[in-house]
C-alpha cells in the first residue's frame, strides 16, 4: 500500500488527478462551511449580477449565489457518482463472479441479459429508466446504476475466466473446498485490480450522466443545485448572464478530467502486464 501511494505520487499526471479529486471531495464534505450562502437562498435585490466580492461567481435570475450552488453541486455530483457506481459495481461483481465461475447456463442467461442492456446507448437507457420511474435524485442514481451494471459484469467475468485457469484454483477444487469459499477467498481478491480501475472511470461517467439527465430536466429537481440543472437554467440567459453558464461548466470539466486522469494512472499502476 505504501509502495502504491509512493508510485501514484511519483506519477505526475496521476497526482494532478488525485489532488483534483480530493479537492472536489473536500468541497462536497465542507460545503456548508465553504459556501457563503444557502444554495437556494434568493437574494431578490441582486438578481443576475456579475461576479463581485459579495457574490464570487455572480448570481442567477433568482439572485441565488452561483458560487454556493457550484459548491453544493459538488455534493450532489459525488453523491450520485458514488451511489450509482456502487449499485453498478455491486451487481456487476455479483453477476460477473457467478457467470465466470459457473459458466454454462447461468453464464448464458446473465450475459444475454447484459447484452440486451449493452445494446442501448448509455444516455438513452438512463432516460428510459428515469422516464418509467419518474424524475428524482434517487431514481437518477438507480438508473445510472443499472446502466453501469453490464460493464462491470463483463469485466469481472473475463477476469474470473483468466483467474479460474490457475492451478491453485484447480487444487482447491481437488481438495474439496466449497464453491462459495473459492469464489470469496481465492477468486474475488484476484479480480480487484481491474475492478478498482473501472470504478474510478465509471465515477466520471456517472457524474456526467447525472449532469446530462438533470440538464434534460429528468435528474435532480430544482431548486436543488446540480451542475446540470444550473446549465439548463442558464441556457435562456447565455447572452445576458454568461457567468451563469461558465462556472458550472468549468466545474463539470475539471471534475471529469481529474477523475479520468486518476483512473488512467491507476490502471497503469495496477496492470500486472505493465509492472516492471
Amino acid at each position, binding site marked *: 500500500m505504501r509502495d502504491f501511494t509512493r508510485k501514484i505520487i511519483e506519477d505526475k*499526471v*496521476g497526482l494532478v488527478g488525485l489532488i483534483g479529486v480530493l479537492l472536489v471531495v473536500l468541497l462536497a464534505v465542507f460545503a456548508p462551511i465553504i459556501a457563503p450562502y444557502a444554495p437556494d437562498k434568493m437574494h431578490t435585490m441582486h438578481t443576475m449580477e456579475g461576479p463581485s466580492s459579495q457574490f464570487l461567481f455572480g448570481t442567477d435570475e*433568482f439572485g441565488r449565489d452561483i458560487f454556493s450552488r457550484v459548491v453544493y453541486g459538488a455534493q450532489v455530483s459525488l453523491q450520485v457518482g458514488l451511489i450509482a457506481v456502487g449499485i453498478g459495481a455491486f451487481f456487476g461483481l455479483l453477476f460477473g463472479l457467478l457467470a465466470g465461475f459457473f459458466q454454462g447456463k447461468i453464464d448464458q442467461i446473465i450475459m444475454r441479459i447484459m447484452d440486451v442492456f449493452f445494446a442501448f446507448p448509455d444516455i438513452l437507457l438512463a432516460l428510459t429508466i428515469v422516464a418509467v420511474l419518474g424524475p428524482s435524485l434517487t431514481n437518477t442514481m438507480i438508473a445510472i446504476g443499472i446502466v453501469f451494471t453490464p460493464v462491470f459484469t463483463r469485466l469481472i467475468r473475463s477476469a474470473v475466466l483468466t483467474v479460474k485457469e490457475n492451478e491453485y484454483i484447480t487444487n482447491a477444487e481437488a481438495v474439496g473446498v466449497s464453491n462459495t469459499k473459492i469464489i470469496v477467498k481465492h477468486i474475488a481478491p484476484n479480480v480487484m485490480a481491474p475492478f478498482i480501475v473501472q470504478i474510478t472511470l465509471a465515477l466520471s461517467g456517472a457524474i456526467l450522466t447525472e449532469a446530462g439527465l438533470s440538464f434534460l430536466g429528468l435528474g435532480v429537481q*430544482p431548486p436543488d443545485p446540480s451542475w446540470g440543472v444550473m446549465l439548463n437554467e442558464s*441556457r*435562456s440567459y447565455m447572452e*445576458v448572464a454568461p457567468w451563469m453558464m461558465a462556472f458550472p461548466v468549468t466545474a463539470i470539466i475539471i471534475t471529469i478530467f481529474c477523475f479520468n486522469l486518476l483512473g488512467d494512472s491507476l490502471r*497503469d499502476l495496477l496492470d500486472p502486464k505493465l509492472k516492471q
Partner: protein
Amino acid sequence: MKNNKILLALFAITFMMVLVACGGNEGETSGETDNENTEDTNTESEESNEEDSSGEQVLKIANDQEPAGLDPHITPAHSSVRVYSKIYSTLVRFDENMEIASDFAKEWDWKDDTTLVFQLREGVKFHNGDEVTAEDVIYSFERILDEETGSHIASYLSSIDSMEATDTYEVTFHLASPDATLLTNLTNSSAAIVSQKVVEENGDLQQVAVGSGPFKLEEWVPDNRVTLTKNEDYYVEGQPAVDKLEYYTMVEEASRLSAVRTGEVDMTTVTAQSAELLESEENVNVMDYQSLEYSYVGFDMNHEILSNEKVRQALSLATNREAIADIVWNGQATVSGPIAPSMGDWSIDVKEHELYSNDLDQARQLLEEADYGDGFEIEITAASTYADMIDTAQILQQQWAEIGVDASIKQVEWGEYIDIWKNTSADVLVGRNGSGSDPDRAMNYFFNSEGSANVWGYSDEEYDEIVTNGKTTIDDAERKEIYVKAQNHLLEKSPNLFLVSPKNFVAVRDSVENYQPYPHNSEYIVETTKK
C-alpha cells in the same frame, strides 16, 4: 512510461479541445444552414425584385414552432393559427379597439334574442376561383359542430340550433337560447369559412389551404418555412400591402434573436430578457403588448388537504405575485385575476382583493384554523419545456415555505404535462391560460362544473348559476356586473391561484412600417409595408 502518460494527458486535452470545438461548430453549422437557407431566398427575392421593377415586398417572420397542421377547425396550436388566420376569412373580426367589425359579413342584425341574420359580401372568391356563398358559411359551421370533426371550438357555437340560407348572400342563425358570446366567438380564426369541395377532395385541410382571406398558401416546406402570397382579389381595398409573407421555423430563442439582428427576418417574438438586449440594436425596434394570458397555480380540488378552502386561501395570501412578475418576467407582467387586465373593464382590480395582500400572519392564522398550523408537504408539478413555469414553481416553493408549507417540485416533459392536466393527477400544477376574447371563456370554459377545461374538480352550484347567467344575458352593463360577481366569487374560493399576465415582445426591424401588435391579434400585418 512517463512520457507515455504526458502524451496521454496531452492527447486528452487535445481531444477535449476538439470536442469543445466540435460542439461550437455544430451550433455554428446549424446557424449557417439557417443563414444559407435565407440567403438563398434572399437572392431569389432579389432576383425577382430585378425582374419585377415595381419591387416585390416580402415580409419575413421567424416562428418559434412548426405549424401543427393548417386545418382551422381542428388545430388550435398558435403556430398554426398565425398562418391559417391569414388564409381564411371569418364572418366578423375585432378592430383595434376590440370592437366587433365587419369581415366577410357586410353587416348583421339581431331580429330577436335568438335570431341573427348576416348579410354577406357579394362576388368574393375562394383562392381556387369558386364564389363564396351562404351555403359555404353553413357548411363550415356544420363541419365545426359535427362531432366527427372533433373541433376545439364546437362548444363556442353550441347555442346554434339551426342555420338557413335565406338568400345566396344571407344566412340566418336560429339559437336555442340567447347567447351574448356568439359574435365574439365568431371572430375566432378557427371559425373560418372553408370550401366544401376542397374538404371533400382532400379529406381534411391539414395540408391544403383554400380560403378567401388576404393571403394564399404557396408552399410549405416542413421544418423550414411556409410561404404565402398576396390574394389580388381580396375584398378589402388596398390590403394586404405586402406581396409575400414568409414564415421561418426557428425553435431556439438564440437563432431567432440573431436572425432579426442580421436582417435574415423582419420580425419575431422574443422574451423579456432578449428584448432588453435588443434595446442597444440600432436597426431593431422592440414592441410590446399586454397579452391575454395569465399564469396560474391549479389545485386538485379532491386532494385531502387542498380541498379545504382555508388552506387554498392561506396559500393565496402567502403568494407574492409582484415578486413573480419581477423575477420570472423581468418586471414585464401585471398581477392578474381569472380575466387578464388586457380585457379592459371586464376584469376587476385584483390588487384590491384581500387574498392578494400577501399578509403572512393572516395566512398562518387560516392554516391554524384549518388544523394545519404546522404546515404540510405538497408537490408542485411544472412543464420542463417552459422556463417560466419552472421559475414560478421555485418562487412559490420559497414563498410558501414562509408559512410552513414544504413544497417539492416535479418537472415533467410537455406531453406528460398535458396528460397530467387532463387527468388532474398532480396536487398542484403551474400553468398558463389564455383568457380569450370574451369573459365567458375565462369564467365558464375553465371553472363551470360542466366546463370542458375544468379539470380541477371544482364544482360550485352558486358559481355555475352566475356564469350561465352571464352567457345568456345580452345587455352589456348587466353582463359586466355578473362577471364582477363571478370573479370575486372565484378569487374567494381559490380553486386556482391567478398570478400574473405577462407582456409579450415582438422584435421588428426598422424597415417594417405600419405594424402594431394588439393583444387579440399580435400579427396584424395586412396594412404592413416594407421600406
